[in-house]
Structure formats: C-alpha cells, structure tokens
C-alpha cells in the first residue's frame, strides 16, 4: 500500500555527468518496495508544482553500508526539478510517495538468464533488480549503453556485482563504440534460456522490444511517461496497449499497469 512520507535526505552523492545517488531513510518503503517500482518525489518550496517519478535504485542490502530502512534513487539532472533536487543538501526535506506501480517479474524460473538492458540513466532500477535476482540465484548479464563514458553511472557497482557487464558508448569513450542493441543482437544469436529486462529512453525500448520479438525472447520494459499523480487517477501517463489477440488498442496507465510492462502488450 503506497504511503505519503515526509523524509530528509540522508546522503547525496554526485556521480559526475549530472548523475546523482540519493539516499533517504524510509522504513515502510524499504520494506515494501519491489525492484522496478517507483516513487513520486516532491521538493517542498521549489518552483515545481508536480512531483517527479523516480525508480527505486537501491533497497537495504543493495549498497554496502546503508541501513535497513534506506532506499536509494539514482537520477540525472535533465530539467528544473532534478536541477533543484541536485542543489539540496543532506538534511533537506523531501516528500516521497510510494511504492508505486508494477515492478519486474522476479519469478524467472530456474536456469533462466536475465539480460538487463540499460540505456544511460535507464540503469536506475537495475541495482535493486540485480540484487534481488542474484538472491534468487538468477544469473544476470548487464548490457549497458550510453552516449559517453560519463553517462554510465554506477558502472563500478555493476562490474563488482554482476557476473557479466557489456558496455557500449556512442562515442567509443568506454566499452565498444555503438548502440546497446548491437551486443544484444549478438547475445540473442547465441540462443539459450534468456529473458530481457530493459529500461531506457522509449526509442531504445522500442528497438529492444523488436529484437526480442524477432528472437522470440520474453521481454519486459520499464517505461517513462509524464506523470501528474503517479497513483492512477489523472490518466495522464497512458500508453497504447493491445488487449487480447484481436489487437484492439486501449490506453493503459504507466503508473499502475506499469511502469514495467511485457513488451508484447505495447502498441507503440
């Protein structure tokens, strides 16, 4: 059940490239949030009206040294809200509503390998996810693509924790030059019992979904959408989906029926 909490920033780390790791203490969220779910975060006194949606990045145990009530959010400065957030020091008040939405399916079945496909800041939900899958004995490979080396936040964390990390950058400044879909195609060509869990900009997700469909590999994507409420009442965040086989489309809410959705359901 979602709650609306007033919290303080416990720690705030600048990771470079505009990326920041934010920690708050919020026991109910630490207890109840599942990987892939998100929070609506409000900045009291800022010149933003609506809250902003952010995925849970870390839960207790994800990052070393954090407490049993800690939750982490990884975010990138892209506009007024995130710019304001970045200026807030530890001790500053935030309002946080969550957990919200539908997370990743963690019941992958024994022997399934999880391919986590991240585009830049789209890696945000993956630490908590990789930790949860790891705890279930599921092997995870991270395919991590970005524009440039500075757009790969938490790469060291992933390298230390995931069995395999494949990096691509558009400018070649880290890993292989190219798009994250290149190694994805290669990996799928090798076959095996795999499943894709992807998060990143919508055009990337669309491409990943197409590749998955072609390879007949199950694929979940974590979507982004402008949100006013985050809990299902404004109907602002919808995506077109297909209901049943008939292919009749409807609009479903990213904040309730998502943000994680089976790729084949989407009618982009």
């Amino acid at each position, binding site marked *: *059940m*979602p*709650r*609306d909490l007033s919290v303080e920033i416990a720690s705030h780390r600048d990771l470079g490239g505009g990326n920041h790791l934010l920690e708050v203490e919020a026991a109910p969220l630490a207890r109840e949030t599942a990987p892939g779910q998100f929070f609506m975060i*409000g900045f009291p006194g800022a*010149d*933003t*009206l*609506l*809250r902003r949606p952010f995925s849970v990045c870390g839960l207790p145990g994800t990052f070393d040294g954090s407490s049993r009530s800690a939750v982490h959010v990884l975010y990138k400065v892209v506009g007024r809200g995130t710019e304001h957030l970045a200026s807030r020091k530890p001790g500053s008040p935030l*309002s946080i*509503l969550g957990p919200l939405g539908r997370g990743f399916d963690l019941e992958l079945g024994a022997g399934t390998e999880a391919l986590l496909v991240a585009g830049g800041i789209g890696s945000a939900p993956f630490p908590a996810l990789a930790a949860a899958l790891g705890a279930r004995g599921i092997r995870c490979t991270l395919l991590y693509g970005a524009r440039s080396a500075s757009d790969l936040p938490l790469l060291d964390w992933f390298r230390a924790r995931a069995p395999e990390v494949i990096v691509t950058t558009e400018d070649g400044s880290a890993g292989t030059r190219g798009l994250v879909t290149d190694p994805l195609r290669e990996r799928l060509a090798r076959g095996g019992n795999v499943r894709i869990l992807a998060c990143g900009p919508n055009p990337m997700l669309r491409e990943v979904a197409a590749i998955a469909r072609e390879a007949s590999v199950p694929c979940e994507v974590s979507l982004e*959408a*402008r*949100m*006013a*409420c985050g*809990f*299902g*009442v*404004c*109907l*602002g*965040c*919808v*995506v*077109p989906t297909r209901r049943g086989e008939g292919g009749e489309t*409807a*609009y479903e809410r990213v904040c309730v029926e998502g943000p994680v959705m089976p790729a084949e359901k989407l009618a982009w």
Partner: protein
Amino acid sequence: MVTPDLSVRLGSLRLRNPVLTASGTFGYGLEFLPFLSLEEIGGIVVKGLSPKPRKGNPPERIVETPSGMLNAIGLQNVGVDAFLAEKLPELRRHDTAVVANVFGETIPEYVEVCAKLDAAEGIAAIELNVSCPNVEAGGMAFGADAASLARVTRACRDATRLPLWVKLSPNVTDIRETARAAEAEGADAVSLVNTYVGMVVDVERRRPVLANGCGGLSGPAIRPLAVWATWQVSRAVAIPVVGMGGIASGRDAVEFLLAGASAVQVGTASFVHPDASVRIAREIGSWLAGHGLASVREIVGTLRTGKEERR
C-alpha cells in the same frame, strides 16, 4: 475553542463540510482509500461519465506549466453503465456525497446519462460538464454560449429529479451570462471553474507537447482568475455556487468561500498530495476556530470590495 460547524447546504443537499474533490482529479474515489477516509470530506465528484466508455486522447496528455498543468485527457472513462455496476456499489459503502460528472457529445447523450443516474441509488447530485476544452464534439461547445448551455440544462433538468449542477467554462467573455442561463433553466447550483485553454510548445519538435494541441490549465496559476469568476457569478445568481481552481490550502478555500462559494472543489492539489482535500477541510475548521466563528456558513459571500456604495 468550540469546534466550528463545517456543514453546508446546497439547495436540498447537505454536505458534512464544504470540501469536495473535483471531477477528473479523484478517479472514482476508491483509488484514494490508501491515503484518506472519504468520510472526512464533504463529497467527491467522479470522473466525467459518458454513455459509452471513451478511450480518451493519445499521449502526451499532460504537461507541467508554471504553478499549473495542462491536461488533455479527452474524457477517458469507463462509461456510465460500468460506473453504476462496478464503482458505485463500492462507493456506497462510504458515507460521503457522490456527485456524478456527466459528459455527452450531443444533448441526447447528456440526457441518456442523466436518466441512468436518476434511476440509480446513491447519487447525491449530477454535475454537467459543458466546459471540457479537450474534446472536439460537445464539451466546451455547450458551455461557450448562453443559448446552447440553456438547451442542454433544460433537457437534463427534464431527465432527472436529482440536484443538477452545471459546471461553467471560464473561457468566455462574461461568465455571468452562462451562469444566469443555467439558473433560468432549473439548475440547482453552478460550479466553476473548469480549466482555461492553453498550449505548451515543444520547441525542439516544433509541435505542441500535447497530442491534442491544446489542453486545459489547472492548478494554483489560475486561482486568482477563478476567485474573480466565483465572485462575479455569486453576485449574478441566487442559486448556490461551488468554487474551484487552484485550491491547495484552507486559506485558499476561504478566499472562495468569502467570494461567495457555498462549497469548494479541490482538483490538481490531490495529485500533489493525495490527502490534500482532507487537510484543506481541517484547515478551514482551524481557520474558523482561530477567528472565533461558529459556522462556515457565516463567512460565505461576506467579501466586501468597498465599492458596494457606488454600485
């Protein structure tokens, strides 16, 4: 300090307190149960109901603006039948006034929904949405001039004995004219304001952000405009006025009450703080108590402009 009496009357309808939630910002009410108890507010106005389910507009549907937001949801809703079959029975288990917001593309569609609601159990009032800026047919077309507003009001009046509220569009030269037309055709109350038409441009794509092109502006940005509209209308009609537009605190609500609203609706604020409506009701109580007032009814319409003598 005595606890002030917050109850208000809108014609034959008595509300526990003057705070309702605005249509389209409170779902069907049930979504808010994790955050508040429906017994703590005066009532809820549900998302606009049409004869058939509506799919709504394609995304993008919303965009933030300075102290406000634009929306062009396009009245996505389950339709009146599903509302009556699935949502209302649930809602009836809570002791709160349920106001049904009604939308049609034609007058017969409005009438059809009103008649179905009339036959149901547990509806406190009907609010006609003749002011939605986000649909091509119906909506604001009916609310933009007094003559068509009169026609739709009369047709619905004849279709139901439930209290009938008409929700006015602020996108007009003189909102008092449409208010008077609603009153003349038998409306029991007018509610205002619906949203103001606006547009945000995505300068990179050279397109409006919203797929619909324009959308309706709500939130604190419009509050001064809505207070003015409320004041204008409350002096032009004798029926009760329900005020709204950017209310985010008890103090904001008191502005509307002073300006002549017998009750208020809270919209966009519920997105930001799901329990905003309950908090606002409490804050009105504290404000009255702090001013030694025994009842909220004592302040309704007591604004003075200092120009009374001159008029």
